């Protein structure tokens, strides 16, 4: 049986990279004494599949991994045992039993909701909202095999809101192996579109990113949380 685990990652732990995080969880599940299923062969390993890597420095309120088990404790047991094995800053928030023949977390990822905040107080966030709402082209330059290419970000941004009071920008963008839009690309593209100059530009580009949730696309073509799949147990 496969469960999907939701966890948050906040505080100093955000400086642990993805590979280290995976190895950390492999030990945590053993400390939690879960009935883990292992691969066959000389070097058996856990069957754990993370949805989408979080960059070093980013926090998250919605990360996921799928885990294969031989048997399940109660949901409460699962959460308690896992959280007893957690380091400060990582909380296992939820766990759901996935249906048979469910696409794994990694293959499912299609989007992310990011919340961007800043290190200094910005006076021009209302203008940022205007620039977005006015439909000004936003493009990002990417190095490809054929040289540098510009591509439009707008097609890949599905929602965008600015809170000038809270000093945050929240956006829903495409994520995944096919297309991956980083929050930093969007911010930089807006800075270019606004022709921002220093010191405003530097302040604007120095961002702190929190992933609010990791998303997939449901049968109806809508974005839903990866955590929407599966049932309680």
């Amino acid at each position, binding site marked *: 049986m496969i469960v999907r685990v939701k966890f948050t990652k906040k*505080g*100093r*732990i955000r*400086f*642990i*990279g993805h590979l*280290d995080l995976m*190895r*950390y969880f*492999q*030990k*945590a*599940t*053993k*400390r939690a*004494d879960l009935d*883990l299923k*292992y691969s066959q062969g*000389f*070097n*058996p390993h856990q069957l754990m599949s993370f949805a989408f890597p979080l960059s*070093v*420095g980013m926090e998250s309120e919605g990360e996921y991994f799928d885990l294969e088990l031989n048997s399940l404790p109660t949901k409460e047991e699962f959460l308690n045992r896992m959280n007893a*094995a957690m*380091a*400060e*800053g990582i909380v296992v928030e939820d766990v759901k039993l996935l249906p048979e023949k469910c696409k794994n977390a990694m293959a499912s990822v299609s989007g992310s909701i990011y919340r961007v905040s800043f*290190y200094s107080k910005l006076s021009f966030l209302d203008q940022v909202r205007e620039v977005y709402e006015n439909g000004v082209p936003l493009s990002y330059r990417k190095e490809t095999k054929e040289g540098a290419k510009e591509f439009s970000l707008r097609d890949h941004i599905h929602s965008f809101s600015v809170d000038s009071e809270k000093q945050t920008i929240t956006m829903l963008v495409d994520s995944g192996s096919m297309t991956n839009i980083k929050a930093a690309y969007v911010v930089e593209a807006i800075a270019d579109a606004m022709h921002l100059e220093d010191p405003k530009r530097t302040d604007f580009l120095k961002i*702190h990113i929190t992933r609010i949730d990791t998303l997939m696309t449901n049968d109806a073509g809508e974005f839903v949380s990866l955590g929407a799949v599966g049932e309680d147990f």
Partner: protein
Amino acid sequence: MNELALSDDILYAIDMPARYIGGEINSVMKDKAHVDVRFCMCFPDIYEIGMSHLGIQILYDMFNRFEDTWCERVYSPWTDLDAIMRKENVPLFALESQDPIRSFDFLGITLQYEMCYTNILQILELGQIPLHATDRTWEDPIVIGGGPCSYNPEPISDFFDIFYMGEGETEYRRLLDLYKDAKKTGMSRRDFLLKVSEIPCMYVPMNYTVSYKDDGTLKSFEPINYSVPKRVKKTIVTDMDQAVYPTKPVIPFVRAMQDRIVLEIQRGCIRGCRFCQAGQIYKPIRERSVETLKAYAQEMMRNTGYEELSLSSLSSSDYTGLPELLEYLIEECSRKKVNISLPSLRIDAFSLDVMNKVQDVRRTSLTFAPEAGSQRMRNIINKNLTVEDILGGAKEAFLGGWNKVKLYFMLGLPFEKEEDIKAIPELANEIAALYYDTVPKEQRQGKAQITISTSFFVPKPFTAFQWAPQDSPEDFIAKAALTKNTLAEQLNQKSIKYNWHEADVSMLEGVLARGDRKLNRVIETAYRKGCLFDAWGENYHHELWLQSFEECGIDPTFYTTRVRSEEELFPWDFIDCGVTKSYLLREYHKAMREETSENCKNQCQGCGCASYMAGICLNYTQK
């Protein structure tokens, strides 16, 4: 949780910020207001190296079990952070609290290898602690060193307040109580350090004066007053089962060099190999019981979730409980899906059987450490391994499916002749030939893959070879060339690879290992010139070290190639580590006569360690 000492700006600018944030599983957080003593343990190299060290885990656990003490950790910032910390005046901090190390009561620095000495100065300087012990006040922590290099602490004696001679599990409680008392009664720091000398295993450099003869050798090493003992005696754990053991070790987030459960099965060694310092300073051999180790293994698997477990000891094959322990571990680890990483074992039917059970023989190599190529040379170094042992073991291994063999040797051993050096590739050739003779063509998984690795011998204090001259780097290179050329003449040379080490670093290691107090200035000079992370090949700047020697008016060869007379007073003679100087000299003479000595199990050699009345010596004293 505390705020981080490093700003986001800095953390984003450096490699592997996870090294500096703490918060690891099993790291200990206490309320600093509720402890009397704050101890900071330091490994003077980067985090990934330091976190691989069992010693710090043992002491960290021990200190944190004391209710009145909070022990934290600090490691060398890598060069990128080092530069930023100097530029922006960020003081070096401990990982748990993120507080500056200067605010601690004690800074304990472990001394595992000589090449980390410049890093010690980095720790002190970035910690904003005066480099010289004589300049420190009660505003500064007591800087205490321990570990193998403390068996000749003289080259770094200026930088430490105290050296702890021996195993850390025994006398720290006494030191902390002495410290708490001193603080309560308003004792001066100098008086405290005088009182510390009353603890037999504590060496306080500033309580002794040295003088030199005209030829540069040590003339005298004297205590400054009657309350300070003439000699300092190593302390050891006598009952290994009673000693503390970290069954909840701190688990690094980043991948450490050794990132697994470590079970220390015994301490010490019976073999008495004449080049080996560890074998002498950790005497007498003391085992942990199999029952204790089984319990530790279970606890550690439960507390860590590690997927690999290893055994730690000097000569694991000599552990009397090895078959029973391995049988247990193989079964338990298989159940819990934990891989076993075997230590170097003597190659025989038993170990091959074990290795077969835990390793994929097609991918792993068999390791032999003959250390010398000819029987004559092996007798000189008292390495009890014959050609029959090696070939017999190799043959069994080849029949069992192995085709990779690693052979470790040293070049520059005392009384070495050309034919001894040539014997190295000749031996490798014999092993390769044996492979082709033993395994029929259809069953071979490709060619035999034999690797010869030679390091350059560095004479160490408290060994039979502490009187021996060390080869110069030029000699070393010539010997490596001889090995290489002789290899090229071998029939099976295509199945044999040869790796050799850096000669320059071995020279510096040789100077520092048998150095005296005059070297303090050289180390500081080299550090000021930018020498740091000397153990890291790419960071080692031999020319800067040579310049430093010159500027200080010191000839490094005085410490390396010079032949030492049997009457010479050594800078480390004031230390009583159990083995007597007369025993070591006896062994040196036996080496000259190419005679071997029995191991402790077969026959007591009267080395002097029986004075500890512990471990294997009890077999002889309890009659």
